[in-house]
């Protein structure tokens, strides 16, 4: 959604290079995707060091699995995003199992430190494109009815199943399923306008 065709084609070309073992293509793909993927990992994990480890895992996975990418299933950008989300969810579940309690001050310190050392290698054009894309998505999501938005964000960012969302909001399961479907359909429609 929101990705222009030329960008998607460029992403596919970079990924094809990665599948051939081209490290330069991999470096370019890193520059293109690392910002959005890191933002997602940091938002979901709330811990900069862990988000960096997750990002490293994701890029290693991209390197190893580039050849298995299927253009019929998703764009490169979405493939990488959903892969990141999946790795982050694995980490969140493992975190629960480890009984590790991270103090909020440590999280904040780590986040601030990471921001202080933020990468400067990304080009201004890339940043502008990405921001424009993000602004478009934010605008589409903000126009969704509140209950649809709530359901899809709880599912996407908080790793809650539709059963858990229904229980948390005190709503029938069918209602939550319909809200998720309608919300995603509206996002899809706005992407194609």
């Amino acid at each position, binding site marked *: *959604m929101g*990705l222009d065709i030329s960008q998607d084609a460029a992403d596919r070309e970079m990924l094809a290079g990665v599948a051939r*073992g081209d*490290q330069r293509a*991999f*470096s370019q793909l*890193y520059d293109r995707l*690392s*910002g*959005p993927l*890191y*933002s*997602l990992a940091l*938002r*979901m994990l*709330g811990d900069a060091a862990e988000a*960096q480890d997750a990002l*490293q895992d994701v890029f*290693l996975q991209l390197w190893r699995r580039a050849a298995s990418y299927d253009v*019929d*299933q*998703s*764009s490169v950008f979405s*493939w990488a995003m*959903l892969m*990141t989300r999946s790795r982050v969810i694995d980490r969140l579940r493992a*975190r*629960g199992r480890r*009984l590790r309690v991270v103090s909020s*001050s440590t*999280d904040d310190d780590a986040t601030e430190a*990471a921001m202080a*050392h*933020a*990468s*400067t290698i990304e080009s201004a054009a890339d940043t502008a494109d*990405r921001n424009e894309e*993000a602004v478009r998505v*934010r605008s589409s*999501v903000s126009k969704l009815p509140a209950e649809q*938005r*709530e359901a*899809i*964000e709880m*599912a996407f*960012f*908080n790793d*809650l*199943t*539709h059963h858990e969302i229904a*229980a*948390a*909001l005190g709503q029938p399961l069918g209602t939550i*399923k*319909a809200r*998720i*479907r309608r919300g*995603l359909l509206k996002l*899809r429609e706005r*992407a194609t306008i």
Partner: protein
Amino acid sequence: MIPEPLQDQAALYALGLLEAEEIRGFEEAMHSSAELRVFVREMREASAALAQMAPPQAPPAELKQRVLREVALDKQNAGAKSTAPRVAWLPWAIAALFMAFCGILLVDRARLREQTADILSQVTFVTLGAPSPDQPTTAKATVVWNPGQQSGVITIDNMPPAGPGRDYQLWAVDANHKDPINAGVIRIDPNGVARVRFKPGQSATQIQAFAISLEREGGVPKREGPIVLIGKV
């Protein structure tokens, strides 16, 4: 035209919410319908776009070097596997070292397990976060829940004041109850901190999540206000 129940499943599939058995059934349906496959792709694109709601952050520059080093090493190892002559005794030596290391770890693990068995069997830790990525909150909360005792402790930091005539209220989302179970009102101190021991109003045997909502002062028997923090068990 794809029937609505199948569209529901496609949306849940794209978000990774289907159970293993449901996935099998749905993938069979996808296999026989090109229209459904296209629909799923669109649902996937819409789902992935949600990630852009996360506040933009750039990773530290040194991370790229770390990743590139890792990839170069991976490439080198892959090449070495196919071309390097093998030293016959080396795998055995590595295996022996590994076994010795595992032995040490097992002894250590058994000792640790003894020390922590009680805690592990008694409590669950849950981290709560904002339900929406653009909700401007730095608040963080951790619940330590003891199912045996049906009680827990919640620790909250950086929570903004509830505001006049309002209170924060804690809820336990339990699979055996239609509505979230009231776990009490939480009063935040002027520094945005709260440490509260709580006991849900009803028996909670299958808790799936904890949530905090913003309610009328004194709390309500059934949630009315918006959820401000939520965390999956």
